[in-house]
């Protein structure tokens, strides 16, 4: 086994081209668990922690770009949290402070677990995933990036460089259900984004399907009921019907973390809660 520590993205791309199948290592919070328990013995590891450009983010009124190596701790507060409150909320629910200092959005995308806390936010914000390879830069909408449980459309020679998000105007938040407050993997999660600029409402569901699910029928039902260019109405009936429709689009399963029925119930509760919060 060998370990490479590139300092630029180009160097990392060249190393990956020279070492097909090398394990890309970001914060280590997923990979090292596999290594520690002897589930994984990679031949070659390309550590990305020293690639400074991956640890940068840029916020402007037209576009927000977040490097794949930005740790969750830097999303919790500061300019990124101000620009993307839903991402900040999701980041705060990840693991413990120690995990948030290490774990990154790029790692979340690389692992692509349906329970990954960053992923519903990227889905609801219609983020693009930017991938770098010897052929150049390729941008993939999140919905086309995540293709199954821990499966994504990253090609073998591509490195996840960043995500791009068009800023929205209006309420956005993330809520999650787990067995306790800290150190918890999501049982069900919801990201709700209301964008008055595009008069749209977007809701993405985590841990209730093989991929992150956008409840698109519920979204279009809601925008047919309300004026989404304005603040949404504080209407219990609309909230309840919207939440019922959102939950109907979830595809949860029974597993060691919860049951299908509970997960669907949790999604309905969270969707209703976030809708009501958005009206205030």
């Amino acid at each position: 086994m060998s370990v490479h520590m590139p300092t630029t993205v180009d160097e990392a791309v060249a190393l990956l081209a020279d070492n097909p199948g090398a394990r890309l290592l970001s914060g280590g919070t997923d990979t090292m668990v596999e290594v520690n328990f002897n589930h994984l013995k990679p031949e070659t590891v390309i550590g990305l922690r020293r690639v400074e450009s991956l640890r940068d983010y840029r916020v402007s009124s037209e576009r927000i770009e977040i490097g794949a190596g930005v740790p969750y701790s830097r999303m919790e507060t500061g300019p990124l949290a101000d620009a993307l409150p839903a991402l900040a909320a999701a980041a705060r629910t990840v693991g413990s402070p120690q995990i948030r200092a290490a774990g990154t959005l790029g790692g979340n995308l690389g692992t692509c677990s349906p329970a990954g806390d960053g992923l519903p936010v990227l889905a609801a914000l219609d983020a693009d995933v930017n991938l770098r390879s010897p052929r150049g830069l390729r941008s993939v909408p999140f919905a086309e990036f995540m293709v199954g449980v821990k499966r994504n459309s990253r090609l073998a020679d591509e490195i996840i460089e960043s995500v791009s998000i068009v800023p929205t105007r209006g309420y956005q938040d993330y809520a999650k259900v787990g067995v306790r407050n800290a150190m918890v993997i999501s049982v069900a999660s919801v990201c709700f984004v209301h964008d008055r600029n595009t008069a749209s409402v977007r809701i993405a569901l985590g841990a209730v399907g093989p991929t992150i699910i956008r409840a698109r029928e519920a979204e279009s039902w809601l925008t047919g009921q309300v004026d989404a260019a304005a603040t949404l109405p504080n209407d219990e009936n609309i909230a309840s019907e919207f939440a019922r429709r959102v939950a109907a689009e979830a595809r949860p399963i029974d597993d060691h973390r919860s049951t299908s029925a509970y997960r669907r119930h949790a999604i309905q509760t969270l969707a209703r809660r976030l809708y009501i919060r958005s009206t205030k």
Partner: protein
Amino acid sequence: MNDTTGFYELVVNGKKREVRDSWVGESLLYVLRERLGLMGSKGACEQGECGSCTVLLDGDAVCSCLVLAATATDSEVVTVEGLAADGAPTDVQKAFVEHGAVQCGFCTPGLIVAVHHLLDRNPDPSAIEVKEALSGNICRCTGYGRIFAAVETVVAIRKGAGK
């Protein structure tokens, strides 16, 4: 390019340390304990849940079990052994002893590192900020009450000293 195959150097507690004849898939926790003889950091869950292996990596409190040691070659690692320059207990360690915040002691080194990390950045944390900062360090003995009391004491003493 840094191609590491069995020999590399780490900077631990301000000193260069050579790691030889090791498998490069070893975690920083394993290397600290088994290769460098620094037994302060404890290993329990090996999956980043318990916090007993907490160290400072370039100033961030992280779980050393989740750091691939060979990727930390250009980083500053500080373990619980490196917190006090002269080997005497730090104010945090003294407060833990005085308050009985140590029972079996297994989680203590990780908590000590986490408390130093918190108070270096936030010298006057609220109760909820203390709980949040220590939420990644699991203690099964104390019920945390005495740990929080120890942190309060350190905050008060440091405030007094600053006046």
